[in-house]
């Protein structure tokens, strides 16, 4: 994994004009809106940033989900804890990610660890709130039915409450994933070679900005669709929740 990490010089010093050969040279020289020839010849330089970003997003959302789920599980039978957890994750969510990276600089330095911490902390608020909302929406009749069948608290949670809360849970994961893809471009400032790296290194080269920007947005759309399909499989009895940013 270390091989994939670019060792960036101090940020402002490394804004240099990189190799812009390949394709139609005059298109590149005139910096036209999009130079397909250059894009075709140089597409390989986006594969590592793309894969790094994908890995970063998957790991960060997975960790964020595990922590948020543990919080939700813990506060499920201790409801007085819910406002505390919501407020705590809310404060963390308010801290801008770029500032967060550099607040961690003296503690964890720059690199994958810092990037993963920042991104997963960012997902906590959304995922936690959605799991709690999903569990709160479980009809009491369903829970009573489960209890009537002799289920223990644990069985009730895993067999009745959690499956019924699945649509909200996945809605939360979808929002968290899409936001994380967007924010992960900023992790170039934590020295991780995401799609933010080409954006930052050649910020005045239009073709480059179009490619890196479009790849990042496509990644968000594809991951969103994957989760949508997962929800259809896991909770086929309910339509996906239309989640507003409330």
């Amino acid at each position, binding site marked *: 994994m270390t091989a994939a990490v670019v060792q960036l010089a101090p940020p402002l010093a490394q804004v240099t004009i990189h190799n812009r050969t390949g394709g139609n040279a005059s298109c590149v020289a005139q910096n036209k809106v999009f130079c397909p020839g250059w894009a075709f010849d140089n597409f390989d330089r986006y594969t590592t940033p793309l894969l790094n970003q994908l890995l970063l997003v998957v790991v960060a959302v997975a960790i964020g989900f595990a922590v948020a789920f543990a919080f939700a599980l813990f506060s499920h039978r201790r409801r007085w804890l819910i406002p505390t957890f919501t407020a705590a994750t809310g404060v963390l969510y308010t801290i801008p990610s770029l*500032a967060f990276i550099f*607040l961690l600089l003296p503690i964890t330095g720059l690199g994958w660890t810092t990037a993963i911490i920042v991104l997963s902390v960012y997902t906590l608020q959304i995922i936690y709130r959605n799991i709690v909302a999903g569990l709160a929406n479980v009809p009491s009749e369903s829970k009573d039915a489960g209890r009537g069948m002799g289920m223990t608290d644990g069985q009730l949670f895993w067999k009745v409450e959690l499956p019924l809360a699945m649509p909200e849970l996945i809605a939360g994961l979808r929002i968290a994933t*899409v936001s994380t893809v967007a924010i992960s*471009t900023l992790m170039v400032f934590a020295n991780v070679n995401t799609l933010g790296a080409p954006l930052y290194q050649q*910020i005045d080269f*239009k073709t480059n900005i179009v490619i890196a920007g479009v790849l990042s947005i496509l990644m*968000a759309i594809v991951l969103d669709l994957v989760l949508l399909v997962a929800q259809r499989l896991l909770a086929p009895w309910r339509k996906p929740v239309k989640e507003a*940013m409330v």
Partner: protein
Amino acid sequence: MSGVLHLGVLSVFGDAIDFIFHQQEARTGQTQVGGPDQVLHLTGQHLKVTFLALGVAGAIALPIGVALGHVGRGEGVAISVGNAGRAVPELALIAFVAAFIGVGLLNVTFALAVLGIPPILTNSYVGVSQVDRNAVEAARGMGMRGLQIVAKVELPLAVPTIMAGVRTAAVNILATAALASLAGLSTLGDLILGRNVYGDAGVVAGAILIALLAVGLELGLAGIQWLLTPRGLKLTRAEASA
């Protein structure tokens, strides 16, 4: 070992605080950096572009969202704009505006406003369209007309939802204003992105200041939300949560 690490961490934060309050020589030599003058100047610049962009975003998104919510049409558009907004990478947006449109205050304001529109639009749509139809019917029965209903019934009842969107937009704009340095506008982002000039002390100082501004902005807007929320709504909410 852990004690050494601990002291090292503390000293960087100490240096950062020192950077905010005392001018010092730049890492590159020759010039003086840090100190209250520079910090206040950059903070002012940061807040100026943040509020300008938030104002523009609100002026565009709020009327559209409220109008759509009032007539109860365009749900697909209002929700999709919000979802699409989340997928746009801030860095790509700033880079796009810098390369395709231009640099400087005006262009950065435009870029940041684009970022602020989706949450305000979606939330004002959702807030207004979710207002209890009985309340709207009652207002109509009292002889109120369209605009009166919007101003006196729907908007006040939608305040919590709309303000949640405004807060999301505000914090996102403030965060992204740190990238304005890449588009030719000095903000606190200068400190964060200029490690070779300002050193770790300046970088961490910038991070501390931006984090404090974000939390302050969030709290300030929460206060405004509290002032704008109708008393009756606060009572209902208090009962609901009790």
